[in-house]
């Protein structure tokens, strides 16, 4: 099956300012794709091109087999979109707005809206103007999901949602994936998408820096290790171990970062009396920063691929 989204050397300039500088993106059917990058990297620009809200300066973009510019309303009927800044008129109730948006899409069953609202704990009958930012964001989530689109495009979907609602949101994403829908969502925080995404694309200064399966990212991720011993230990016992970085020993305390297999470390530890040991969950943020900050070499490698 063809890609749900494909861009090829996509560029966008706003006057002299760069929006995108040759972005290559490939989103496969049925996957959840996390589109990551710092603010200003070009995430929103990409997303708005996909919806034909802005037009690329050059390069190719194909969404569900069509160019957004030519696909027009018929193409957008098949997409659910959550803007990064979800702004709507405050005088109406969520129910009125969602019913109206449903009509623009050819009708959405009231029961479907009710069900989504209930799961997100959204009050459909209050004036939108009286709702908190988080509750307004829930309206945005409902309108993106309610017509069960083939492709969901969401710009920073979890911004403003409290942790409990974020959990519900991730369930909705997982269900959409199970139902065969494709989800493309951006974030500037990896933690937000790592639990639900199959693959992650990292964009920086308008280019794709890396595309990885989340599992691969996790296996490569750096873990912080802290071990307390019964008695002081020599630094040399650990300093040379493979994949063990930034080794520090202070008396009975060892601090280091583990960037690969744990086995050599475990074997080395076995020679001493271990009081306690803690290995943090993979800190994907750290890996993320590596891509952000200094990966000129990485970006060239991606270009060559």
């Amino acid at each position, binding site marked *: 099956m063809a890609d749900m989204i494909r861009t090829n050397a996509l560029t966008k300039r706003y006057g002299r300012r760069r929006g995108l500088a040759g972005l290559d993106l490939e989103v496969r059917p049925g996957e959840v794709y996390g589109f990551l990058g710092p603010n200003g990297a070009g995430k929103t620009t990409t997303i708005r091109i996909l919806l034909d*809200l802005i037009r690329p300066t050059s390069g190719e973009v194909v969404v569900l087999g069509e160019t957004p510019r030519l696909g027009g309303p018929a193409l957008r009927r098949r997409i659910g979109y959550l803007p990064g800044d979800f*702004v709507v008129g405050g005088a109406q109730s969520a129910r009125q707005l969602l019913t109206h948006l449903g009509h623009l*899409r050819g009708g959405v069953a009231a029961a479907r809206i009710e069900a989504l609202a209930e799961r997100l704990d959204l009050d459909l009958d209050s004036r939108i103007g009286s709702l908190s930012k988080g509750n307004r964001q829930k309206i945005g989530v409902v309108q993106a999901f309610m017509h069960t689109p083939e492709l969901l495009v969401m710009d920073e979907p979890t911004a403003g949602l409290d942790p409990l609602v974020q959990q519900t949101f991730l369930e909705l994403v997982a269900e959409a994936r199970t139902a065969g829908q494709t989800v493309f969502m951006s974030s500037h925080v990896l933690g937000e998408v790592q639990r639900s995404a199959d693959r992650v694309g990292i964009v920086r200064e308008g280019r794709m820096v890396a595309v990885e399966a989340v599992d691969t990212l996790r296996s490569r991720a750096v873990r912080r290790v802290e071990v307390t011993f019964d008695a002081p230990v020599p630094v040399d016992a650990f300093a040379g171990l493979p994949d063990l970085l930034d080794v520090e020993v202070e008396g009975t305390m060892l601090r280091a970062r583990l960037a690969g297999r744990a086995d050599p470390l475990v074997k080395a530890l076995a020679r001493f009396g271990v009081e306690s040991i803690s290995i943090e969950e993979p800190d994907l943020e750290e890996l993320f920063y590596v891509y952000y900050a200094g990966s000129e070499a990485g970006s060239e490698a991606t270009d060559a691929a």
Partner: protein
Amino acid sequence: MLRSVFTKTVWDQRRGLLAWVVGITGVGVLYAAFYPSINSPQMQQALEAYPKGLLEAIGMTDVGTAAGYLGSTTFGLLGPALIIVMAAALGSSAIAGDEESGRLDLTLAHPVSRWSLALQRFCALLVPMVLSSLALWLALLAISGPAQIGSIGPANMLAGSLHLAMLGIVFGALALAVGAATGSRGMAYGAVAIVAVVGYFGNNLGPTISGLGWLHDVSPFRFYAAGQPLQHGLQPGDLLVLAVISGVLVLAGTYRFDRRDLAV
């Protein structure tokens, strides 16, 4: 109820609409109520003492008849001013206002084309124009006895009101078109202000200033008022000119709108 962009826009305008209707009919009624006191020999003499040029500049000519009086006041100054301000407000928010507030992204991410959106928003703008001019007509009819303006007759009063609606529509189209083309409310307001001021004084004074006669010829106010609908009834030719100008403005603005990026 809110099935389309058109019905939704009309519905969203309802509160403001009420205020505009009250304002425009209120002005009409207040002016008309003054007619009996204006229509006295003393007042006519007082007016004749004013320089003719000044009276022309503010459109106060021929105030000795009911039609002339209303044509110079309700339909000559404040009525057009109010309906143009209303048209500027509605026309500039139709696209540019929605875009500046960030709401347009969501609507246009739906299965609605930019052409359809702009045309539906324009149709939604016609509703308050026509409704407020009809309300003005009904109000004038209601007070035509006590205000001694019955000589105009219901048909010609309706003609004057519909000319006023058409004047509003032209400026609404201008505001919507400039807003659609530029995405800027300020530009839309600015365009209306310039065309309204230049058009108004150009219409009244153009013929008296050599070299500026053409300003009178092209002013929207000429097609609005020169045919004197209160005296002579509906002027289909003039209304058609204003309608064609409105149509061309909306099409040109939407053509540009369809080809540009939406602002973030």
